[in-house]
């Protein structure tokens, strides 16, 4: 059980708090001690918007310990709007729809459980963009069991 280890990272895991280098303006996530661009050591904290696009992705079939029950799952490099590239899982996606360039947004999900008795670890994942819909794209309630044409039936 690594309670303190996960606790230390909460502001970054839950809220994607990053840094902006006060010397050259580079946005950094996750936090580090030296700016990778200018080696500056002075930063201001910056809340990332959590919006970006898939830079690369993989569907992981051979899962490591702690993730066996989630396999297969999607892992991705996500290019955030602010610049940093982030390694994170994709969620709420199907293999048929995930692609490089797919717009995504950050959601906070359960990353793993430390067994039946241990801590639940929460953190960022990314899913296809939902929150930026324009009003003219508003979706109507299904009248009864109206099935959207694009729905994926996972069975």
């Amino acid at each position, binding site marked *: 059980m690594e309670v303190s280890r996960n606790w230390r990272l909460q502001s970054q895991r839950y809220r994607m708090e990053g840094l902006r280098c006060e010397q050259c303006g580079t946005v950094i996530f996750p936090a580090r001690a030296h700016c990778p661009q200018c080696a500056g050591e002075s930063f201001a904290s910056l809340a990332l918007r959590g919006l970006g696009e898939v830079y690369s992705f993989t569907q*992981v079939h051979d899962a490591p310990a702690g993730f066996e029950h989630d396999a297969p799952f999607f*892992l991705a490099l996500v290019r955030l709007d602010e610049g940093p590239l982030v390694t994170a899982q994709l969620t709420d996606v199907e293999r048929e729809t995930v692609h490089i360039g797919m717009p995504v947004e950050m959601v906070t999900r359960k990353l793993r459980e430390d067994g039946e008795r241990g801590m639940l670890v929460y953190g960022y994942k990314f899913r296809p963009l939902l929150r930026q819909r324009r009003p003219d794209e508003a979706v109507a309630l299904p009248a009864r069991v109206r099935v959207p044409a694009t729905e994926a039936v996972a069975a």
Partner: protein
Amino acid sequence: MRCTRAIAASWRCNNTALTMRDVFILGSGQTAVGEHWDLSLRQLARTAVSAALNAALPARPQALFVANMLAGQLSGQRQLGALLADYCGLRGIEAIRVEAAGASGGAALRQAYIAVASGVVDTALVLGVEKLTDKVGSSVAAALGSAADADWEAAHGATQPALAALIMQRYMHEQHLSLQQFAGFSVNAHSNGRTNPNAMFRNNLKAESFASAAMVAEPVNMFDTAPEADGAAALVLGAAHMLAPAAARIRVAASALCTDAFALADRADVLQLRAAQQSVQQAQAQASCGAADIDLFELHDGFTILAALALEAAGYAQPGSGWQLAHAGKIGLQGEIPISTFGGLKARGNPGGATGVYQAVEVEQQLRGAAGANQVQRARRGMLQGLGGNGATAVTHIFECLN
């Protein structure tokens, strides 16, 4: 293709060129790579060490550098230096373990090289040993995944194959490639492994079946990735005066280790092995040679994408075109730049921290003309490169035959 001989490796430190002694390979040994259910970590180690010490007679090592990645996690065993010195009949000598994930073998070789070249010792033993099969399944995947960033990669479920897959997916996207276009790397490795008695896989791989293998982490599949297994290899290094009069004079002509951004996401360019590129440049400068002077290249083909990127980093292909070398005419035993001449990680097998020492033993065999069916003709100079964590550590050595 005889090259000019560098009298001494040049070593830059605080702008002062230090004079280092020439370092030679006195002997080598290895076990077969595979699932050694009946052999423990120390038994594997002793088998390889005995063979190397016998070959190096009458020289005896004054220091032992053990390359190992996962004994602490998978065997509950650390302090491998003292353990294996003791078990291998070398009780009393200086002995430590060196770890740099998949680059551990090359990193330990470099420590031994520095020890001899500096004059601190006259002989040093490099031992690579890995015992992976005492644990199975997801715990091994997680242990191997500890080469990645635990907080920002592994915590999200990243494994080594998954991170390689992220590189490969992007590479395929940018170059408009299909998985099948990487088949040649695995076909070549299996073709060479077939005649290596120490290889884990000694069967041919058909190019047409490559892309149909089960996925590990898409697009990395079972035929794309190297099998992790048990193994041990050892190499005795010594100063010139330790060489037996009749022995082949195989010199360590270059040794360079570089690092890159640790997490894949932090790399300046995900599709560039910058540490590999820098270590090759430094090594070639030390050996006073260029890419064209290298007769064979044992690269870190844990995944085919790493083979492609390593060839690009070493100057054999332009960025984005390393995949084009993936056929026999280019990388086969008699091709332009032979790679994985004994099967590479893909077919010989990937015993983690021991892999780099296997590479060293294989290059030494090639330069001695002792590679049998796997012999690269007129091999005078060979390069070997280990990667840790998909390239965060890269260690490159060049051996040359002076006979």
